[in-house]
């Protein structure tokens, strides 16, 4: 191995670092370390002149290792890796010391923060000594795409990809396409017909030459990796059909919350307490009638049923407030003199045109009554004989501070959107993770909201979280664009920092296989050792820490590298 020649660069990050850390002192101190050829500081290392400085020094001083002490590697590691690569050094011979998030931002004592910065840089110097050059790799991409779920999100994604001339396999669990939206009467906030909107989409999907629809089909197992996935269908019509595809879109949707869990509302006990989905069906029949066949004189719409309540679901379902206001318009049109009560917890009108829709609906002669989710839910009880209504809702009205009762003949429960319980198969097959609410987790909540941590797998629509039609469609088309880009590219880069097995040390216990979250390790029955699929491996290191014999190592995170780093951080005595 050639003699390591390290260049260290300490970033001021404007005043973000320089205010709390004495960057000059850090530079001087680390400049004395063995193998450090030069140490410099600069106002913004990530700027073009900052990067130029590194490139010039690498060439001028014949550096073969580079350290930048700056912000989090999540932000600029890639920037500097690209910079050193430009100067002819392997990008994995670069290391970053985080002296902003882990130091200047969280400390108040300048002396101590400076000492810590020196420690962090020493650790990086020690670590980078043992870095090894790693080679970038890529795999080819199969141009077909698997879309799981035939709701509006799945259909829109399929159309987008199919229209670009690429093959789509659209898998739907039920016997029809269209999901929940096709059952709706009107949509908010424009009160346009959902069925009219869906009809042409359904026709286009069903008749598209590039879309192959599989109804009453579920996905149980997917093998392969980004660009080269494979599944075998297991339903009666397509038994054994094997599909090959390069990317996957999960659009499995959600299901309405079952309100019978909420005792206060007596769903199931009172025939005229119905869910919003059941009311949509009733609107489809063209008549709003109680179970006794009468026109209701008083209709209450209860919001946040199962939402924003720690007992059921803490999150907001986002669409129910506007759907409830939409119902007002539909009820008003059918029954002009019926009293309508909106029993809500907070009015959420966040979307485009929603606040205006809310303001417009308030003029429809309805009574808004507010309850407090944390205090007491409204309670529905049977009315007395003397009352001129079917049921009575008792509640603590929040805005007046008064305990009130509301006479009602029909109650519509705006049920929460909840994740499917039976998606575990899909989740496991395609390798996505679930959040606490059982929704699929996106790769980055802001910057990468449709991708997942598994390359080639995208999530769109309500399986990622409750959302309305426009948001679902936007996600669907965004995922389609991402996939089309990889198909056009022909190849996709794969992770370099994967794990590898030292076959001499492997005892064949298969612990690594049971802990791997990406199903990237398999067992070689002949050699009796574990083998890592380097395309599937994400380099998370779980196997390495679980391996009892130390046979599995992760590239770029070897024991030697990590222990040297720890030694470095401990090397200064206090």
């Amino acid at each position, binding site marked *: 191995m050639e003699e390591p020649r390290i260049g260290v660069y300490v970033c001021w990050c404007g005043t973000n670092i320089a205010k709390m850390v004495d960057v000059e002192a850090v530079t001087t101190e680390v400049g004395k370390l063995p193998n450090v050829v030069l140490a410099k500081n600069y106002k913004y290392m990530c700027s073009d002149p900052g990067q130029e400085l590194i490139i010039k020094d690498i060439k001028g001083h014949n550096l073969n290792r580079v350290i930048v002490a700056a912000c989090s590697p999540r932000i600029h590691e890639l920037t500097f890796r690209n910079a050193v690569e430009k100067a002819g050094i392997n990008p994995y011979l670069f290391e970053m010391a985080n002296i902003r998030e882990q130091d200047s931002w969280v400390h108040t004592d300048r002396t101590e923060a400076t000492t810590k910065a020196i420690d962090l840089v020493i650790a990086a110097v020690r670590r980078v000594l043992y870095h090894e050059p790693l080679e970038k790799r890529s795999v080819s991409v199969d141009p077909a795409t698997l879309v799981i779920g035939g709701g509006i999100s799945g259909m829109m994604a399929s159309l987008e990809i199919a229209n670009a001339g690429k093959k789509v396999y659209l898998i739907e669990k039920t016997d029809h396409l269209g999901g929940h939206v096709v059952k709706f009467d009107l949509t908010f906030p424009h009160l346009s017909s959902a069925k009219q909107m869906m009809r042409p989409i359904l026709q286009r999907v069903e008749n598209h030459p590039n879309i192959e629809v599989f109804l009453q089909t579920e996905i149980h197992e997917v093998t392969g990796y980004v660009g080269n996935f494979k599944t075998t269908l297991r339903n009666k019509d397509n038994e054994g059909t094997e599909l090959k595809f390069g990317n996957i879109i999960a659009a499995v949707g959600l299901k309405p919350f079952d309100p019978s869990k909420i005792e206060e509302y007596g769903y199931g006990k009172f025939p005229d307490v119905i869910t919003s989905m059941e009311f949509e069906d009733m609107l489809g029949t063209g008549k709003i009638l109680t179970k006794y066949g009468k026109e209701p004189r008083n209709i209450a719409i209860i919001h946040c049923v199962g939402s924003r309540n720690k007992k059921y679901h803490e999150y907001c379902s986002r669409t129910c407030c506007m759907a409830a206001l939409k119902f007002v318009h539909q009820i008003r049109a059918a029954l002009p003199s019926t009293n309508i009560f909106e029993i809500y917890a907070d009015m959420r009108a966040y979307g485009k045109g929603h606040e205006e829709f809310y303001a417009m609906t308030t003029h429809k*002669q*309805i009574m808004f009554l507010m309850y407090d989710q944390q205090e007491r839910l409204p309670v529905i009880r049977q009315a007395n004989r003397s009352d001129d209504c079917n049921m009575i809702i008792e509640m603590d009205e929040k805005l007046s501070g008064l305990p*009130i009762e509301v006479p009602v003949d029909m109650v519509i429960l705006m049920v929460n959107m909840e994740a499917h319980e039976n998606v575990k198969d899909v989740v496991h097959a395609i390798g996505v993770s679930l959040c606490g609410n059982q929704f699929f987790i996106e790769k980055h909540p802001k910057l990468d909201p449709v991708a997942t941590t598994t390359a080639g797998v995208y999530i769109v629509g309500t399986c990622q979280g409750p959302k309305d039609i426009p948001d679902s469609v936007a996600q669907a088309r965004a995922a389609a664009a991402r996939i089309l880009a990889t198909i056009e590219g022909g190849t996709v880069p794969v992770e370099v920092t994967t794990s590898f097995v030292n076959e001499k040390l492997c005892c064949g216990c298969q612990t690594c296989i049971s802990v791997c979250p990406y199903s990237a390790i398999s067992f070689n029955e002949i050699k009796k050792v574990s083998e890592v699929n380097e395309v599937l491996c994400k380099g998370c290191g779980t196997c390495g820490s679980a391996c009892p014999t130390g046979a599995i190592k992760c590239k770029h995170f070897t024991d030697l590298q990590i222990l040297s780093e720890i030694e470095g951080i401990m090397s200064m005595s206090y």
Partner: protein
Amino acid sequence: MSIRVNPELRNQLIQYGIGDWNACYHCGTCTAMCPLSEEGFLFPRKKIRLMQMGLEAQLESSVEPWLCYYCGDCTKTCPRDANPGELMMSLRRYLTSRYDWTGLSKKFYTSETWEIGFILFFAVMVVLSFLVILPSFGFRFTTELTAQGGVKVNSFAPIHIVEKFDWTMAIIVASLLISNILRMYYKIIWKSGQEKVSLFVHIREFWLLIFNFAVQPKFSKCDDKNYWISHWFLMSGYTIMFIVIVVYLPWFQTEKILPIYNLQRLLGYYATFGLLFGLLVAIIGRARREDVKFRFSHVSDWLFLFMLTSTVVTGILIHIFRINGMAYATYIAYIAHMAVLVPMILIEVPFSKWSHLAYRPFAVYFTQLKKYAIPR
């Protein structure tokens, strides 16, 4: 105990003014802005809530609408254009009709036909009295003038009869107002809460009534002091005229032409000026509709302004015609004066807008009583 909401109360409330109070989403800006809203007596938001929920009993026992003097700050700052100021105004109309046991107030506020019909009925009665009844008792028009050259008013409108009539009218109006105030007291203090107010507190705080009637100190707390001033001129002019006409009519309605610096003339001129000034501000305001306070005019608002202005103008004419010896002109002006004055007093004071002269000071008094109330 739970209170039953009543969405159909809306249909009643809407008749007393603008009715789109659902625009309010209870941010509370109005209450925060209001210079008169105070702890324990918060408004307008809380009262708008009662309207929205149709809580009749809670509305009836509310004293707060009378504590609002409609500066309009709430309406100006309302982010939803819910117009809280006008909602408080329409609530005052509603409450006036709820205090009134005869049911006439409700008729007058909710039906223009009833209100104008009654006004015309009284006006016709007045005209008939002068043209038919009084002459049949021997009181006739005379063009003969006094030694000073003034018109002999008392031969046409005999002072002892007019005085008796004034007293009768005052007693009717007073008894209606007092009975309504007792109902107001019953609803606000007696029936409303679990609290009790001692008799001592009732007596000790009684001075507030007179003080508030005379000065309207609460009104002066509104940001725009100009309306308090013009209202005070109007109110003082009206009160002086009312006392002079009912109590001192023989002194006021003379055939003598007194010197200009005589107290009778000075008082008359002051009252006329006060009334005209106040009226002018209100009429111009309501016509221009620039100030929030005057933007929305109910029929009863215009009717009241029209009647009071007509009364003042005809009063001025009587004075001018009389001292200039213009007999017939005086008589016509006198009949016209009485034809607007009588229905105004009989309808507006006990049943309509004018009744606030009693309800407002009493509301301040009742508020004070509630502050000293002991839980029962």
